[in-house]
């Protein structure tokens, strides 16, 4: 294990992270560091372990060994909901919204208050909640659809709704798994605009295949291959790395 001294200014410090499924190491001794307000994009071929890395950080998958430090807190020991409360938000690849609830109710559930059983029984829909929900709904282009049930939304709108649900959580680290996948061209442009707006005061970890999109937003790019880091640096650096061209970009 690689647990040494890390400078304190890293928001997220992943070190020596390994997970093996029946002997297969999906992520193998991985270390990387994300700074405050950094936008990091993870790219890599299919099966490189990108989604697994996000799963490990948000607690969906348990690490076999290694450590994930978020603001000095060890995430590998926390449960999913505690990780969320620590300030890590996660968007899934397929839009996961609550289809039997309205847009308003979807956003309201993500509002960070009354998260215990008792708290949710006594939760009041007061002005703070309403204002915040409306504010976020406007950002995600769903202001006039607050009373629509989420199953009536288009694929792109569902993706926005899920992004909105993360926004209302106000996480310090936002993790997005292919936020523009399956979107139409116009939806894609709107999403890029949306992401550019919401990533301002937080760190973001994005998995994306759309290279143009990556170039637009990334501060730094990490290329994963077979559960390990193949290359890391600016987009310019990564693009010209012969190893990266061979396994990923060349195709």
């Amino acid at each position, binding site marked *: 294990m690689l647990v040494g001294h890390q400078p304190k200014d890293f928001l997220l410090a992943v070190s020596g992270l390994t997970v093996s499924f029946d002997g297969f190491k999906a992520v193998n001794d991985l270390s990387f560091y994300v700074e405050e307000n950094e936008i990091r994009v993870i790219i890599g071929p299919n099966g490189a372990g990108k989604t697994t890395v996000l799963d490990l950080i948000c607690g969906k998958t348990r690490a076999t060994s290694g450590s994930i430090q978020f603001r000095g807190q060890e995430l590998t020991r926390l449960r999913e909901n505690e990780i969320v*409360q620590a300030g890590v938000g*996660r968007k899934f690849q397929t839009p996961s919204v*609550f289809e039997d609830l309205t847009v308003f109710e979807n956003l309201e*559930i993500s509002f960070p208050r009354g998260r215990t059983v008792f708290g949710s*029984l006594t*939760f009041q829909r007061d002005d703070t909640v309403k204002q915040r929900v409306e504010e976020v709904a406007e950002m995600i282009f769903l202001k006039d659809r607050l009373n629509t049930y989420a199953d009536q939304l288009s694929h792109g709108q569902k993706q926005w709704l899920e992004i909105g649900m993360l926004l209302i959580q106000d996480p310090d680290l936002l993790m997005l798994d292919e936020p523009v996948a399956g979107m139409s061209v116009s939806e894609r442009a709107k999403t890029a605009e949306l992401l550019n707006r919401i990533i301002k005061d937080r760190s973001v970890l994005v998995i994306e295949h759309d290279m143009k999109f990556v170039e637009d937003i990334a501060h730094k790019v990490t290329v994963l291959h077979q559960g390990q880091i193949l290359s890391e640096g600016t987009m310019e650096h990564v693009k010209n790395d012969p190893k990266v061209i061979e396994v990923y970009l060349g195709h």
Partner: protein
Amino acid sequence: MINSRFFNRSELLGFLALAVLLFLILPLSLDIFRLNLVAKYLTYAFVGIGLVLCWGYGGILSLGQGVFFGLGGYCMAMYLKLEASSVANTKIQSTPGIPDFMDWNQLTSLPFFWKPFHSFPITLLAILLVPAFFALIIGAAMFKRRVGGVYFAIITQAIAAILTILIVGQQGYTGGINGITDLRTLHGWDIRTDHAKFILYFVEVVLLFGCIVAAQFIRLTKLGRILVAMREQEDRVRFSGYSVANFKIFAFCAAAVFAAIGGAMFTLEVGFMSPSFVGIVPSIEMVIYTAVGGRMSIFGAVWGALLVNFAKTSLSESFPQLWLFGLGALFIAVVLAFANGLSGIWADHVQPRIDRLLASRKSKSAAGMIADGAPAE
């Protein structure tokens, strides 16, 4: 539609219709024997209301609600039995003052866990707390380990089977297969008279409406919406910062408490409690009542319990062998064709027609009023 009212228009109508039926029509039109039968049917409505929350909203299918129905019923029965087993009543026994079945099984003193049931307040508390505590243990053991869906259903069914075997096997402590019978008075008040049955019917209906209001309250809080959310996207709820297990435990415990109230009322209405209301078959029947009524509708659960039991009584009188097949067929029909049961049929087919009828009448009266557009649910 953001609805801040406690009942929307169609729920209010449902509430009033049920109140008129249970408080006026049935007591005025039925003789005491039939009214007592209705009271017996309604005890299952309590279980149904719990299942609506736990299964309909939370997506947690429990095939073991008979356990909680039975625990509530047995708690009540133990109190009544102790009252009926006073030293004066049991002086022919070799140990007077203990229930007759204990005497038959050579017990010479009251077991420790029977002793608290001498007290009526403790009994009332036990009716609520024993099932809740039991549900808490099962729920914590299952949901914290992420056991859910079919596995949970099977385990609850197994628990129902185990409890039945335990009750039957421990004859000296529980009355065995016969259950706890020959119950007479509640706090000195004879529950076997027609007058008492009449009063008990109304007590039960009031309690039922209390449970309806409680369930509706839970449904309308954020917790109610989290239950729906959990049923669809458990992970999204988890990653919105909620402990999914705790919410499931809550729903399961709430359902257990509702079922237990029904069980305790059953003991009072029918005058005995036996393991035949605890096991697998009654537990599954309770799920069927709820499914037929509509697992998403609190009122539907009450109607389902009433109608299926009414059909059961009338059909099993004439075709005793066929009834179980009929019940099975009914369940399959509901699952295949009407996923939301009777209340779904009402909301999708009957309600719109009534609305249209009302709307056309309204427009005729030229008031030009706009329908308030409340959601059908």
